[in-house]
């Protein structure tokens, strides 16, 4: 298990699938739709892994358009609530975390999703398509 507390400097990684398209090609940025999940926005912490290992793990297991991250500190500045939630149903993912709207509401608001998308760091983009 990782530390329950997610440090402000920790990057929270999110996959952007290639189909259907959730990537704004004109802006070369993720749409805020990328950060909209029914039960909070699932992300991965790096844990003991390097960033490259996180990226490789995503790329090797999914057909992706991009991989992006937001820092936990930025999430908090944006009034969202990152929380460590390892082993979500049907997975063995010890790195799994979620970004919630608040400590009582899981779905993040449109404006908060927009902030995350606008400020997300792009780790990798699939140049193939």
């Amino acid at each position, binding site marked *: 298990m990782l530390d329950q507390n997610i440090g402000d400097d920790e990057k929270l990684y999110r*996959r952007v*699938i290639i*189909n*259907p*398209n*959730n990537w*704004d090609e*004109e*802006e070369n940025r993720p*749409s*805020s*739709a*990328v950060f*909209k*999940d*029914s*039960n909070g926005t*699932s992300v991965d912490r790096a844990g003991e892994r390097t960033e490259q290992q996180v990226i490789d793990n995503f790329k090797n297991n*999914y057909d992706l358009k991009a991989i992006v991250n937001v820092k936990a500190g930025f999430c908090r500045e944006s009034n969202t609530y990152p929380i460590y939630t390892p082993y979500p149903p049907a997975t063995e993912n010890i790195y799994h975390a979620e970004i919630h709207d608040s400590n009582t509401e899981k*779905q993040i*608001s*449109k*404006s908060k999703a*927009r902030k995350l998308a606008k400020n997300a760091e792009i780790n990798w983009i699939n140049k193939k*398509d």
Partner: protein
Amino acid sequence: MVECTKIEISEGYSILNEMDTSSFLSGQSKSAKSLLRLTGEINCGVASPTDWILNNYNTSTENTLAWCTQDLQLAPSSYGSLKLVRGGKMNGFTNFTHTEPMITSEYGFISQYVGESKTELHNYSTVVSGDKDYIKILKNIFTLYSYENLPANWNTYGANPISLKLISNALDIIYSVSVQPKIFPTGRNSVQFEYKKANGDYLEFEIYEDRIEYLKIINDIEEEDLVSKEDINAIIIDFYA
């Protein structure tokens, strides 16, 4: 017997066909939905027949439009092949004999749209001047219909499939708005329409099965609320005013 229809839509220009389109456009057994399916079927990739590709057709653009390949559901007597390309060129449109509205259905507006295109296609200059939005509408229609086939967990984070009702809601809006949006699906049972201006202003509609919400950010001032389908266009017009 299988009849073949070939239509090409070139961004910035228009539609061409080289063969008899009456087989599916005037068919009695085809619904409007099947006609849309026909357009969604269009082969965008290398599998397209080559005999009707325009001379100046730029093949490098072909693969960028893979999203418009969908299953074809037509009446047994018809077969259609339509191609959506960029950089193509208009070649007239002949023998477009459809005169009746397609069989009505919840997608009836699509048939109406096709009917309109028929009218315009007899007038070359009208087509050329009115084309861009036409192409954007078609692209968005294809995009929305492509969501119909998304499986559970399509975003790898447990998203549900997108319901037909939601797609239908989104289609209704696509037909009614004066500016076509960028469309993205979300992992929370909604479809998102986005508008952006060069100065950073932003407008977003999140369409659910039972409601529509919007976010407007102008000069960094945010406004979020519910909106009715009927009022969406006014918000868009105001956004671009």
